[in-house]
C-alpha cells in the first residue's frame, strides 16, 4: 500500500519539508554559492517541487528548467526521509535518479540534516505512518 493516499497529501508534506529546508541558512547559502536550483520529481502519486535559494514552488507550476533533477517515487522519498533508506544504496540501485552536476549533488547531501530531523513529525501529523 502506498505511503501517500493522494497527490495533495504528498504536495503538503514534501512542500512543507522543502520550505523548512529553504529556511535553513546553511542550505540556501550553499545553493546560492553554487547557483543551484533543483527540481524534485516524485511519482506514485505525482508531486513536483522546484527549489532555489529564494523560493519553493510545489505542483504543476514548478519550472522545468533546473540545474539538478532528482526523481524518485513517493514511497522511496518517504523511506529516505525517515532515515530507513541509505542514500548511497538508493542511488546505486536506481531508486533515486539524479540528473545534473553529480559533484554538486554529493556536496548537498551532508547539509540535508534539517529535513531528516523534521520529516517524521511532518509525515505523522498528516497520518503518514513510519
Amino acid at each position, binding site marked *: 500500500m502506498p505511503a501517500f493516499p493522494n497527490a495533495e497529501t504528498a504536495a503538503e508534506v514534501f512542500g512543507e519539508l522543502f520550505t523548512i529546508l529553504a529556511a535553513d541558512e546553511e542550505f540556501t547559502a550553499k545553493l546560492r554559492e553554487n547557483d543551484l536550483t533543483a527540481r524534485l520529481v516524485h*511519482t*506514485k502519486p505525482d508531486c513536483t517541487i522546484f527549489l532555489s535559494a529564494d523560493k519553493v514552488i510545489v505542483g504543476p507550476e514548478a519550472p522545468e528548467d533546473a540545474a539538478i533533477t532528482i*526523481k*524518485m*517515487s513517493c514511497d*522511496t522519498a518517504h523511506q529516505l526521509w525517515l532515515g530507513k533508506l*541509505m*542514500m*548511497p*544504496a538508493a*542511488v*546505486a*540501485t*536506481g*531508486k*533515486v*535518479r*539524479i*540528473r*545534473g*552536476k*553529480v*559533484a554538486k*549533488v*554529493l*556536496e548537498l*547531501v*551532508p547539509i540535508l540534516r534539517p529535513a531528516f530531523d523534521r520529516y517524521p513529525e511532518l509525515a505523522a501529523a498528516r497520518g503518514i505512518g513510519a
Partner: protein
Amino acid sequence: MFNEIISPDLSDLPPETRKFHAAVREYARDEVAPKALELDLQEAEDFDWEIVQKGHDIGLTRAVIPKEYGGLGVGVLGVAVAMEELAAACPAVALIFGATMLGQTPILLSGDPRLQARFLPIFGGDQVALACNAVAEHEAGTDLVIPQNAVHARIVTTARRDGDEYVINGQKRFCTNGKVADFASIYANMEGYEGATGLTGFIVPLDAEGVTRGIVADKMGYRACLGSELHFDNVRIPVENMIGGEAEGVAISTAQGNMARSTVAAISTGIARNALEHAVEYCGQRVQGGKLLHEHQFTAGKLATMTANVDAARLLYRRAADLVDNQLPAPEYEPAVAKLFADRVAIETAGMAVSLMGANGFVREYGAEKILRDSYGTRIFEGTPEALSLAVTDCLYREEDDL
C-alpha cells in the same frame, strides 16, 4: 609527439579542466615518458615514489575530490582526459593514480560527511598519499561484481558486527596500490548471508592491526604499479567505516565500476594513441621500396584505421565520462561500451604498430612491444569483455523501469 589529430587540444572543456590537463600533459611528457622503459624493466616490487610524488604535486591524487576537502573537483571527465595523457606515456603510472581514485570513489558515493572529512583531506597535503580498491579474491572475481552471480560466490572475505566495530577476515588479490596505499576500500560478506549476497563496503586503514600486505603479482605489463594481495586477520574497524549500509556492497561496487570504466577506457585510448604515435613516427622516417612506409597503400590503410579507432575510442570515453559527471546512478551502458571498444582498439592498434615497425617493433628499445604488453591490462581491469558483454546485452533487453 603532439600531432593535433592524434592528441587534440581540449578547448571544449572547462578552463580548470584544461589547466589540469595541460599540467598532466607536461608531467607525462617531461617526467613519465622518459622513464617509461626503465620502469618497465624494474622488479615486480619496485616502486618509484619520486615520480608518484611529482604526480601528487600537480593534483593527480586528488583530482576527483571536491574542493572543500582540498581536491581539484575536475570530475570524472577531468580525470579521464588526464588518464589518456598519462597512459600515452606509461599506463602503469596512470593506473597508480586511477586506482587511488577508485579507492576514493566509495567515500564520495557515501555522501557521508564524517567519512569524507576523515579520509579525503589526506590527499591534500604535501606528502603523497595513495588509496586502493580491494574486490577480487582467489575464488571470486566477477561473482563479486555481477549482482546475479553473488549467490554463487565461494570463500569470500567476511565481516561481522561486534559492538561498535566490524571484524574482517579474508584475503584480497590484485589490489593495485595494495602494497603502498594508506587505506583500501574493500568488500566483505556479512556473516549469515549466502555467497556474497551480504557484500558490504568498508574503508580499512592499511596500518590497522591484523592487516598484512601480501605478495606483489609479477605481471606481463604495468610493471611500475604494484598489484598485491591484502590479508585481513581479525581486523577491527569502527562501524563508521562502513559504506552505504550492510549488504548494499554489490550495488555500491556496481556504481563504482560504472563510474570507473570511462577512465579505464581513457587509459586504453592513451595506450592506442601511443602505439599510433610510434607507428606514425616510424612510417614517416623508414624508407622501403624507394619511398616512405606511409606512402605504401597497405601501410596507409593501417595508419588510417588506427587513427579513426583512436578518435572513436576517445569520443566514446568522453561521452561516458560526461554522463557519469551528470547522472546518478552512473550509467551502465555508455561506460561499458566505451571500455569494450577502447580495450580492443588498444590491443589492435598496439599489434598493428608492432607489425608496421617490423623487427624494430619486437625489440625493447623502440617501446612498441611494451605498449603491446600493456594493452592487455585494461582489457581485464573493471570487467573483462566477457563480463561487459553481459552488461551491454542486459541493457539491450532491459525494459524501461519507470519509477
